[in-house]
């Protein structure tokens, strides 16, 4: 667990036509840790994600990643710098095969993507790496299947394999466990634990057991502000947090 701050937001703020979705959030993520973002619906978690990954432009405030100011960077440039995100709904390419899904990512890394005049076979050397990645997430037997045919849990596994193809230093996972069966949750938790060994992970998650198991630090957001921060034990005892979650029973 490093002491270096890999990602830092300073007074980040986002307004949508008068409503403030993110209201002065200053977040520090230490390198090599699993950092969970939790909070009731509408707390601004996904908006914060979109701001960090440049899918949205902040109204005010700044973002630093690996010591560089990325406040005005382009979304498509962040993966090159090692930061890759996932989405709340499973982000796959449904009508490509499982293998092609991973190849799209590998191709970006090796820079073959603008080869209009070459055939598919010119990137055949990527298949080996793609298969390794698919094996790591337990999808080896499905490689020629269309991604849309996979059951939900497997789709998320495919998404993770695709993400890992970019060899990211930092992953931002938006509710990786949403809609999963308990069997899938165990498998994906295991997978996340494994990939977290060499990486930094920021994760939005509602399932408290997952958060407690996996994360080193938890930041609780409520109405666009940070309500509490720290390890699970501290945060779960915090009276403000318990109050924010009243009625939903999550913090119990």
């Amino acid at each position, binding site marked *: 667990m490093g002491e270096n701050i890999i990602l830092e937001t300073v007074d980040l703020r986002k307004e949508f036509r008068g409503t403030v979705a993110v209201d002065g959030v200053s977040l520090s993520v230490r390198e090599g840790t699993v950092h969970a973002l939790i909070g009731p619906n509408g707390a601004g978690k996904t908006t914060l994600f979109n701001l960090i990954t440049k899918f949205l432009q902040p109204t005010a405030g700044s973002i630093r990643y690996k010591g560089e100011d990325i406040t005005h960077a382009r979304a*498509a*440039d962040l993966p090159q710098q090692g930061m890759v995100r996932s989405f709340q709904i499973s982000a796959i390419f*449904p009508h490509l095969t499982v293998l092609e899904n991973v190849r799209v990512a590998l191709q*970006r890394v090796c820079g073959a993507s603008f080869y209009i005049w070459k055939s598919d076979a010119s990137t055949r050397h990527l*298949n080996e790496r793609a298969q390794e990645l698919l094996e790591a997430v337990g999808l080896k037997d499905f490689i020629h299947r269309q991604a849309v045919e996979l059951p939900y849990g497997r789709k998320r596994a495919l998404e993770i394999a695709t993400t890992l193809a*970019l060899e990211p230093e930092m992953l931002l996972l938006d509710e990786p466990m949403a809609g999963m069966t308990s069997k899938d949750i165990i498998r994906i938790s295991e997978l996340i634990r494994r990939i977290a060994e060499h990486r930094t992970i920021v994760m939005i998650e509602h399932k408290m057991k997952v958060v407690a198991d996996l994360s080193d630090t938890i930041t609780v957001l409520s109405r666009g502000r940070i309500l509490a921060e720290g390890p699970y034990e501290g945060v779960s005892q915090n009276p403000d947090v318990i109050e924010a979650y009243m009625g939903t029973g999550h913090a119990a």
Partner: protein
Amino acid sequence: MAEREAYALRSEVSGWEARQGAERGRLIFAAIAVLALICAPFAVYPVFLMKVLCFALFACAFNLLLGYGGLLSFGHAAYYGTAAYIAAHTIKVWGLSPELGLLAGTLASALLGLVVGWLSIRRAGIYFAMITLAFAQMIYFFALQAPFTKGEDGIQAVPRGYLFGVIDLRPDLTLYYLILAIFLFGFYVVYRTIHSPFGLVLKAIRENEPRAISLGYRTERFKLATFVVSAALAGLAGAATVLVFQLASLTYVHWQTSGEVVIMTLLGGMGTILGPFVGAIVVVTLQTHLAAFGAWLNIILGAIFLACVLLFREGIVGIAQKRLKKLL
């Protein structure tokens, strides 16, 4: 462990074998189709066939953008017509050879595609369609007013000339083989684009654009490249049409031509490689045989288009592919 690896290797090999088998099947089919096209002018009126091929190329170009790029351009006649005017002017007024006319027309359309594409690609869906339509209307009114296009008359009596200064293109049969070669070239470019690493990214963008961005792709660059290729090939089709009918007129840049190419593509099967070709055959055949109905032709076409969108969205080729898959 070794056993598992061996199994995995086998399943991988069989997966690739299946793909190679499909590839071989496609090659045989392509060879038969090309042979049929080579023999066709001995059975069917060559000028009709050339019209089909020109529109088929135009529809293939359009399909690349709509079916694989996911972008509905409602102004593709602009590229088709611009190339037609430039080619006609190059050949008739400047007296250059037909291949230079084709080249000039294609380049002009590619350039126009680059400008319009660059300005419109950031918008999606209906906004994109409207922007492309607006530009196409501008081109139409330019063609109506500019002196070199000869307004309502168009550029008439464009000589077919001699290809590379040697081959006399005046006989319909000779010209047919040039048009066929142009069509096959354009078709191959589309095929190559779709089945390249670039094409895979393009499909990924169509499937899930935010995810493609999050993998580090600047999606607008890929869309723009596709737009330019599509515009250039639409231009090639337009320039080729000039050689066939020896005419470049306002019909080429009219919005109705943009509409016809949409109908051909959807009728034949959007996002299928053969769909636009089949759609072009159907629409041009109908236009030729129902010409006696006058204005009713458009109503008939409209009704067919409606039926297609309501009843069979995959188009003729899309449905045929599904049936074939079931049979196999």
